[in-house]
């Protein structure tokens, strides 16, 4: 049971390890490097062998030339002497001179496969042989010059290991008088060759494993620790802490760029979230107030009172309906502002004639402003022929109407004469003008205006200045105009009209 549990735990840990990108990458690199190094080792060993073979052959060829010449000049006796001499020299090649009966005339080879001497030929495939005792050993081809024996004990040990057979390649030449001459070069012990290859491979694999471990440490433990930090921070953000930011080291690498991109995204989300919270607060406040009023009136109508006529009930009911209409208005305006702000209407922009909008809305409001005693003046900048721009006619029309209603409501100015007669001196002008690449849709009044320090604030939802609190309104008019201006890539500008307010939408004309 315990073993099983441990086993499962190990397997689980292994699976987790495998899930780590760094570990997988390291493993992949490790295997790729392994394949390449094995190939590299094989190829270089093959090349080295080929070169050694070639060198050995050319040495053999040179020796043969000399020995043939000696044989030609000095006959068998000369050849035997020369071979004997060479056999005793340090670093000697292999020599053997035999007759047809197999009697050895000269040479340093004690034993070799009989097949070797059968024909006049090259023997490229190394064959095993034994030297005559006391003969100097041939220099092994793979031994490095000047290497200290203590550095590579296995080489020396093998060199001293006389019992293990050595291999050689050779050229067998049949001489004219029935003698056979063999000249060969030692190729060391085949087992030693194998162990060199094996050693190289083991060394390669081990060093690769070390490299893989080190790179895993750097990738997995260092770089991925940063990703881990990022995901930890993200979890905290998901848990609700929007003020969290992802770590940035300032190196400007990929991780840093990712972090900073995510951070600016978070910034935006935090702002939006703040906006939503603000909005929720103001909705709670600004919708609860009229709701409370609505409820109070309905309640008051229900309280039994002397002489309450059906007419009074009717009035109370009509009152509640108009209160709820006001609520619906606020709600619709809020919805519209958030949808305009979210840009969901941006797709519906199409060429609209601003002149038409100004004329239509101007005409719509002209009657009501004049009725209230105000002067209303619509003017369109002359000598401009084209007033088309990409826009949403409905939204622009509503924005202009909001500005005019604002001017009507808050831009008022009246005077009371000696007899107590009130004269409305409000003067509102609606004008359309072109300023460079922009179209300005201006509404001016001569009322109290908006103090400079409040001009940004009033664009926000539900913000109403103290002076206007007594008048009906929702505080959404200007934020709607602001949202519509932004939707069209423009802005709402509030200025001092000296006296009064000049509000204009600055909209890009193309």
């Amino acid at each position, binding site marked *: 049971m315990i073993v099983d549990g441990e086993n499962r735990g190990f397997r689980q840990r292994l699976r987790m390890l495998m899930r780590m990108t760094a570990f997988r990458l390291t493993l992949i690199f490790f295997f790729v490097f392994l394949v390449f190094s094995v190939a590299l080792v094989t190829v270089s060993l093959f090349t080295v062998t080929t070169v050694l073979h070639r060198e050995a052959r050319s040495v053999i060829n040179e020796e043969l030339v000399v020995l043939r010449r000696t044989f030609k000049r000095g006959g068998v006796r000369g050849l035997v002497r020369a071979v004997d001499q060479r056999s005793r020299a340090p670093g000697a090649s292999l020599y053997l001179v035999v007759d047809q009966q197999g009697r050895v005339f000269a040479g340093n080879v004690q034993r070799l496969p009989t097949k070797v001497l059968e024909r006049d030929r090259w023997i490229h495939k190394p064959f095993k042989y034994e030297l005559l005792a006391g003969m100097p050993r041939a220099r092994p081809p793979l031994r490095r010059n000047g290497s200290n024996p203590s550095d590579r004990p296995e080489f020396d040990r093998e060199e001293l290991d006389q019992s293990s057979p050595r291999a050689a390649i050779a050229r067998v030449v049949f001489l004219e008088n029935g003698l056979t001459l063999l000249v060969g070069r030692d190729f060391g012990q085949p087992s030693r060759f194998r162990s060199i290859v094996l050693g190289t491979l083991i060394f390669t694999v081990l060093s690769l494993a070390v490299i893989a471990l080190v790179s895993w440490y750097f990738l997995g433990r260092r770089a991925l620790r940063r990703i881990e930090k990022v995901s930890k921070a993200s979890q905290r953000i998901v848990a609700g802490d929007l003020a969290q930011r992802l770590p940035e080291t300032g190196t400007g690498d990929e991780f840093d760029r990712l972090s900073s991109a995510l951070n600016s995204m978070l910034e935006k989300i935090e702002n939006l979230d703040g906006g939503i919270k603000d909005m929720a607060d103001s909705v709670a406040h600004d919708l609860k107030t009229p709701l409370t009023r609505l409820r109070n009136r309905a309640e008051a109508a229900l309280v039994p009172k002397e002489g309450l006529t059906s007419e009074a009930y009717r009035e109370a009911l*009509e009152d509640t*309906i108009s209160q709820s*209409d006001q609520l*619906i*208005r606020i709600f*619709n305006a809020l*919805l*519209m502002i958030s*949808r305009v702000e979210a840009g*969901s*209407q941006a797709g*519906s922009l199409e060429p609209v004639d601003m002149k038409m909008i100004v004329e*239509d*809305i101007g*005409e*719509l*409001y002209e*009657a*009501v402003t004049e*009725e209230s005693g105000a002067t209303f003046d619509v003017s369109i900048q002359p000598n401009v022929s084209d007033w088309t721009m990409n826009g*949403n006619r*409905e*939204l622009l*029309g*509503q924005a202009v*109407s909001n500005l005019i*209603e604002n001017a*009507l409501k808050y831009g008022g100015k009246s005077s009371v004469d000696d007899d107590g007669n009130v004269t409305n001196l409000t003067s509102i002008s609606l004008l359309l003008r072109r300023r460079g690449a922009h179209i300005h849709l201006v509404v001016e009044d001569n009322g109290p205006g908006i103090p400079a320090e409040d001009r940004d604030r009033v664009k926000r939802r539900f913000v109403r200045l103290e002076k206007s609190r007594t008048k*009906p*309104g929702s505080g959404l008019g200007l934020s709607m105009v602001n949202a519509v201006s932004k939707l069209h890539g423009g802005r709402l500008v509030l200025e001092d009209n000296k006296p009064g307010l000049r509000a204009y939408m600055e909209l890009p004309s193309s």
Partner: protein
Amino acid sequence: MRILLIEDDREAADYLKKALKESGHVCEHAADGAEGDTLAKAGGYDVLVVDRMLPKLDGLSIISNLRASGDQTPALVLSALGEVDDRVKGLRAGGDDYLPKPYAFTELLARVETLGRRRQPEEGAMSYEVGDLKLDRLSHEVTRAGQKLLLQPREYRLLEYLMKNAGQVVTRTMLLEHVWDYHFDPMTNVIDVHISRLRSKIDKDFETPVLHTVRGAGYMIKA
């Protein structure tokens, strides 16, 4: 008028059914999209009142299905969405009018009755007559008791729309929609002022008024 109401909110539907019946109409009710689709296809209605968001089949699909089969029964789309784009979508799907929720019943009634009327022959008439008030749509000439009245272009259009729907309540938003082609809800009494100007021209010098104010609803031209 035979009205098919397709609305999934039981309470709203009951209220509408009752109120429409009290206004003298026959009202049938379907509580979901599929039922509404079947009933609408069966035909025989003068007006369809269709909620946009319905279980099983949404309101706009019902209307576009009908239009695809050549049925032109006028349809009023009700929607909680109610913004500019939604209105466009509703009308594009074949709806004839669009009313955002929440609405006043008088508004709905006025629109339903206008829609029901649309099928009647006077739609394409060349002139309208209400009592001694005459409006010639070709010459744009308006006379009352043979006396020529001088109207501004907008006043003419206002009167034309009112006379086209003579005997019927026309709400302020309907006037803003059809005469000015805007769909927002002006906070001040802009429409009332235009009406009173029109009234001063067509009613002031005559004994019997033809342009009536319907309290809590809108206006009506009636002899």
